[in-house]
């Protein structure tokens, strides 16, 4: 049940427990226990909402920053990653294979806010060799969900 449960709630974390139990074909108490276990094991880390901020009046700037760093003996990249992730404006930090090391996704209110974070905080860290900042201009798809017009059901109403 675990894999199917995760697949369902990854798409819809608001589904109610009774309904979840019905569609998975198990008892409600089993769903409750499994969810508790998944939370305790740190597999479920939160129940977030996917928001298309562009449709609101709230201004937000998202940047994707490539960071090249010097790994430390015995620590690898963990130390510097842990340091970067502490900033609340940092949304995600990934270790990446290829031309750079860390990918940092940053959210700020204004362009200036993001730039000053990069120039004052990020690039001044000792292990950071260089950064390249890319501003996100438009989000087409996020977390597997396409932002945009909902498509109509184009099927005939009745077919054999």
């Amino acid at each position, binding site marked *: 049940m675990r894999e*199917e449960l995760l*697949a*369902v709630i990854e798409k819809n974390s608001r589904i109610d427990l009774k*309904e979840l139990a*019905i*569609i*998975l*074909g198990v008892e409600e108490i089993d769903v409750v226990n499994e969810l508790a276990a998944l939370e305790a094991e740190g597999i479920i880390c939160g129940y977030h909402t996917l928001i298309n901020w562009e449709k609101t009046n709230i201004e937000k700037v998202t940047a994707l920053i490539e960071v090249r760093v010097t790994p430390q003996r015995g620590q690898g990249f963990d130390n510097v990653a842990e340091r970067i992730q502490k900033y609340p404006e940092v949304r995600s930090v990934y270790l990446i294979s290829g031309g750079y090391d860390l990918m940092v996704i940053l959210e700020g209110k204004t362009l200036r806010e993001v730039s000053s974070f990069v120039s004052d905080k990020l690039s001044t860290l000792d292990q950071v060799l260089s950064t390249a900042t890319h501003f996100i201009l438009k989000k087409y798809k996020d977390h597997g969900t396409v932002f945009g017009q909902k498509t109509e*059901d184009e*099927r*005939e*109403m*009745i*077919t*054999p």
Partner: protein
Amino acid sequence: MRNPLADKVVEIKPSGIRKFFDVVKEIKGAISLGVGEPDFDTPWHIREEGIYSLEKGKTHYTSNAGLEELRQEICHYMKRKNGLTYDWKKQVLVTVGGSEAIDIGLRAMINPGDEVLIPQPSYVSYEPCAVLAGATPVIINLKAENEFRLTAQELEDAITDKTKILILPFPNNPTGAIMERKDLEAIAEVIIKHDIYVMSDEIYAELTYKGEHVSIASLPGMQERTLLINGFSKAYAMTGWRMGYVCGPENIIAQMTKIHQFAIMCAPTTGQFAAVDALKNGDPDIAEMRTAYNQRRRYLMNAFREMGLECFEPYGAFYVFPCIKEFGMTSEEFATRFLEEEKVAVVPGTAFGDCGEGFLRISYAYSLENLKIAIGRLEHFVKKLRENKG
């Protein structure tokens, strides 16, 4: 002027579904549970392969029987899923949907007066295709108490010395019934005893929710007397591509290929290229869609239980077939009133044969959100009918 029409065609009664479709069109803002095709779009990698073939200029006829690579992939699939070995050169034909395979299979095998056994409720085209092929259709009325499975006794009772083919439509549209191995073994015994052929329409094979689908062709002594029809429409959500195929004995496939060659030439080339990719890389898509259908199936079965609506638990396709006899209406009356009063379209069971009277076909090829809205209205309607009666 002379009558331009063929009596044989004029005498075929129009599809019951068509009639209901015309009613539905008149109702503004109706929602539907009446669709017999997946709500998913074809997985992107399959569509992309079709597009790529067009870009490369693959816009010509293929060989009559279909692309070599496609026929080989079909054989791999048959081996992998059913443990069946077919020779791709002689025992496989790619058709325009499973529908064409039904039509030309009957035309290739029927002599005037041969009887074709058709269990009902079932898909609407078997009976007219049998008639057009010159056969005498013999209907076997399946029963709710058997969960709409075909029993050996029912088969035995329908067989005469003119019987040539049994059409075996499982997993079934419209009932959702499946035939498990033990059910098929009993049928196979009768088939072999009376030296009959089977046309097994397994278009919904991948949508089985209880164990693995079993093909009757995989039972001992059955491959040489079975035409196994399958296709891409249901498993890969490819209805609009019109891609099907048939595997069977060399002598039958050869004659079917002859008809196909003269009537059709070859199945659409773009679709054939897409279908190759479906067979090579589509297993995860099938699994994902099957999981979603199964969740909806459980949701509907639970909803029926809660509203006290009688319905056997179907383990195949994407239909449930609840019984509405308690309301003292015909299926058509119920469906028409439900449409007019609650604005939800479902298909009367009688569209799939007279023995579908007292039942409705409800499709769950809809998102859970849409199903919830429609089921809410069904609950309201059922409650209203019960109150008025009591």
